[in-house]
């Protein structure tokens, strides 16, 4: 390891400690705000580290900096302004929106690395498996969270949306996802495999969230939040970056426990909620 790599790895480790301590502190109302602050400090350290890495390695093109800066600044302004302006009653849908883009970013990383290997290259399963998990889980959370945002804000009907043949369609979509997975693992790279995988996971996210009533949405958002954590962890496998793996797995596991607790607080089981359509429309909430 070069000095740069060693230092970066150590800083990433410290930032990972900040996330764990942050979650730990957030369990109590007295320390929750410090917890979030600590986790934000960890995030800042990770970002500064990657900026220094990119600068020193110097492989990035001017255009690369351009898209990073424009995309990053637009994102920061949009996210921060939205978060500052939103009325407190509309917070859940905003969290769901932020979760959607997180899943989207993870999926983009998977797609990028798959395409970067080039058309026709043969891949090891150690590379293709994390890529496909990343793209599929990221895709599901992206569309699923957007529908959840819509349901919470009223742009999509809060009533469970079901239609004849939904079950059959679900099965077909799952088969298509599995098919794309087999093609991505077993065959040489081809753009269309990953496009199919992404398109089908987006469909699955829609089909999964639409039949669930608006009143159950917070639990679903929490579950999708845990999914995004896992997608980010797999993105960490893809680009071989440990801070993504640690933070992603942490959110995946903590989010799962939180989802179970939220469902318990509503006297529902997660399986029951996901089955959907049990008279949980807005009128009942």
């Amino acid at each position: 390891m070069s000095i740069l790599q060693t230092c970066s790895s150590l800083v990433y480790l410290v930032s990972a400690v900040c996330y764990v301590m942050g979650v730990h502190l957030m369990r109590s109302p007295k320390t929750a705000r410090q917890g979030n602050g600590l986790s934000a400090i960890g995030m800042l350290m990770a970002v500064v580290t990657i900026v220094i890495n990119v600068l020193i390695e110097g492989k990035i093109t001017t255009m690369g900096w351009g898209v990073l800066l424009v995309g990053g600044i637009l994102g920061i302004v949009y996210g921060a302004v939205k978060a500052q302006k939103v009325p407190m009653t509309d917070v859940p849908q905003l969290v769901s929106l932020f979760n959607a883009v997180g899943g989207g970013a993870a999926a983009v990383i998977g797609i990028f690395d798959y395409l970067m290997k080039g058309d026709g290259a043969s891949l090891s399963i150690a590379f293709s498996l994390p890529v496909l998990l990343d793209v599929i889980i990221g895709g599901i959370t992206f569309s699923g969270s957007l529908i959840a945002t819509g349901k919470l804000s009223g742009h999509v009907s809060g009533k469970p949306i079901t239609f004849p043949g939904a079950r059959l369609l679900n099965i077909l979509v799952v088969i298509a996802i599995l098919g794309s997975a087999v093609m991505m693992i077993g065959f040489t790279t081809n753009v269309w495999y990953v496009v199919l995988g992404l398109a089908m996971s987006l469909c699955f996210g829609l089909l999964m969230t639409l039949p669930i009533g608006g009143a159950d949405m917070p639990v679903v958002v929490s579950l999708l939040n845990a999914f995004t954590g896992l997608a980010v962890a797999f993105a960490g496998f893809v680009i071989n970056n440990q801070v993504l793996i640690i933070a992603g797995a942490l959110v995946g596991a903590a989010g799962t426990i939180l989802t179970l607790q939220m469902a318990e607080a509503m006297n529902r089981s997660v399986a029951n909620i996901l089955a959907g359509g049990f008279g949980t429309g807005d009128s009942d909430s």
Partner: protein
Amino acid sequence: MSEELFTNLAIFVLSLLVGFEVMSKIPATLQTPMMSGANAIHGVVIVGAFVIAAEANSTLFYILAFFGAFFAAVNVAGGYTVTDRMLGMFDRKPKPGNNAGEGDQK
């Protein structure tokens, strides 16, 4: 299995266990802020956005890198801001069971 993959897998599994352990029973009022706080943490995907932007070399890759950076930046900036705002509500509210104490009447 390469050494690198094994290390990553070990880190992944142990981090999952830490995630399960660090999350004990939390009060219902903290569930939404906790969800939002965890949501902000997975914004660390922005590190990945930098990694792919550093490798991009064609129009398609620049477009992907742009969306990666934009999405991740929204996640990080928005996630931490909104969580902090939510938790700020707790600071202003008097603590339950402790409100209208003698201190207020003097």
